[in-house]
């Protein structure tokens, strides 16, 4: 079997009903596994951004990108290889600790740059942002305590540097229009 790798795919889509369903449906019916998925607004209200993390072989990832690119509502697809990209997940986690153990938790939070955002007599809720590995590691360290519940988002990712997917897509559209007029 080919080597699988984890890949973050950032997709700019038209901001309209049914798009999430269409993209998610594409992944399920073609048998691609989604590790994580985030949909959010962008700086341009015509578009939404979907950030999808997949683990697949390079050939499959190429096929996924090709299938995404031909969707009518997909404006632009960029596969991030992890180096030139800022990627963050958000974790909220609630642990049943009180009194004496709390200081140990505070130490851990300092190491991970996590924040306590709700404190009760017998529980504490923490917030952490970071890479998938960092969040995994934080949860692992906390797992010696009774975890009451947690919520974890998929990733948000942006390419480093001065680029903008929406602007690039618009510029490409304009260039295509000019060519057609010629």
């Amino acid at each position: 079997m080919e080597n699988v790798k984890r890949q973050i795919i950032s997709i700019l889509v038209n901001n309209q009903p049914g798009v999430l369903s269409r993209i998610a449906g594409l992944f399920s019916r073609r048998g691609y596994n989604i590790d994580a998925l985030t949909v959010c607004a962008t700086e341009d209200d015509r578009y939404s951004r979907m950030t999808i993390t997949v683990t697949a072989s390079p050939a499959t990832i190429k096929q996924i990108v090709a299938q995404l690119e031909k969707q009518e509502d997909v404006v632009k697809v960029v596969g991030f290889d992890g180096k030139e990209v800022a990627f963050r997940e958000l974790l909220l986690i609630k642990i049943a600790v009180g009194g004496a153990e709390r200081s140990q938790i505070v130490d851990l939070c300092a190491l991970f740059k996590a924040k306590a955002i709700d404190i009760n007599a017998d529980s504490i809720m923490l917030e952490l942002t970071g890479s998938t590995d960092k969040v995994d590691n934080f949860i692992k360290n906390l797992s010696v305590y009774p975890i009451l519940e947690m919520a974890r988002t998929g990733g948000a990712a942006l390419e480093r540097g001065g680029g903008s997917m929406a602007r690039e897509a618009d510029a490409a559209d304009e260039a295509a229009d000019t060519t057609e007029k010629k």
Partner: protein
Amino acid sequence: MLLSGAQILVNCLAEQGVFNIFGYPGASILSVYDALTASSVKHVLAAHEQGACFAAEGYARRSGKAGVVLATSGPGATNLVTGIADAYMDSVPLVAITGNVSLDKLGHDSFQEVDIFDVTMPVSKYGMIVKRAGEIAPAVRRAFALAESGRRGPVLVDIPSNVFDEYAEYTRETPVRPSPRSPLDDEIARAAEMLNAAKKPVLYIGGGARAAGAADKVAELAARLRCPVAVTYMGLGCFDPDSDKFLGVLSAVNGLPAAAIRECDLFVTVGARFNSRYGAFGALKKRRIPVLQFDSDRAEIDKNVLAAHAVVGDAALSLAKLLPLVDEKEEADWEYPALPDMREVNRGTEIISALSRKTGRRTTVVTDVGLHQEWAAHNCKIYTPERFLTSGGLGAMGFGLGAAIGAHFASGDPCLLITGDGSFNMNFNELTTAVKHHIPLVVAVLNNNSLGMIRKLQAASRSKSNVNAPYLNVDYAALARSLGARGVTVSETDDIESAIDDALDGPLPVVIDFRIPINTGI
């Protein structure tokens, strides 16, 4: 001018150059039927929405332009799904327009409410729900542009019934289509190098070549390369069937293309998919035969078989750019072994050959799905693309009768439907539509009183079971007469030539019930 949503819809269809649409009324779409009475667009009432959808497909496959099907909400809409899926698999331009329950009733499990937008999502190129009359015209124009451009396919436009009765401004517009995709020069140059270096290439031509109108370019390329040409079901008609280089359709009953694949040193596809139905492509990987792929859809490249090189673009534009760069090969360069004729001959194929000969080149041949489909693909001489219509990717039994009716409306052609008793049983109700419109249609039912393809699959399987009990010995000639058509029975032992001459001598449509032995071709 201020028009109702229904009038806007019908005006948009006329604006797109549509003459005939196919459909079936229901409460949620009745307003459109009112608007149609005052329109140049003629509605053909089918017996069943599935038949209407196949008719719209037949219209599209024959004309190359989008077929239009109209259906009501709920069951009307769900009855379209097989036809929409069929159009999706074979890249047929189709615009399916469904009425839905009114906006205030949407989402309440109202009477005849189905979320057809979501139901059709995985089997359509695109879908839209139109919630205001002012959005109908842009949605319909976009649906046609999408259906007919790039890799073509079905587009759904779902309109809640109250939107048909709202008023909005309408201004006529000229239809706009995106220009076909031009290939990159360096991709073409590399392809030409590969072709010039190859000693024994084989061409494999599919629906992409037909959709792009590239048949003449295919002929030119094959002539330069002096190489054999195989086709897919969708590509049949893109190459001269009388040429000694013609290998026919790759399928279970024609071993010729598979033999050619094993011998070639470059396998060249033009707008053809590597389907999963036949094992012949396995030889490409096993023998490390390089594949050169021409396709308008980048997602087809490397999907099922890895390509050594690919050119992404419209087939006609790609071949036009390629041809000046391809060297003319000498016959002496050719190292290809002679291949034997590997076509199966049986009572069914003999009937089909005779029918093809007697109905002539101007006839559009349509098939259903089953053993007769493969026999038809190998024994009908098809000289023009778009004169052989079949359900290739989906393999939808019951496709043929609706498709033949649609093909006639698109072209005025006489039509020959080659079907089996199994497929005909699925949708023979559309015979009423053919009778009503005096369609010059010959329906040849190759009647083995059994599901031949299933028998063949079961005979080949380990279980050797046979769930397929013989049918009820239907008298299709009598059935045809009861529906207003002419009906003729030809027995297993009748002389084929004279029986067909007799059967064709009389008014159409006619159903010829050809009794053939139950084990024909198994």
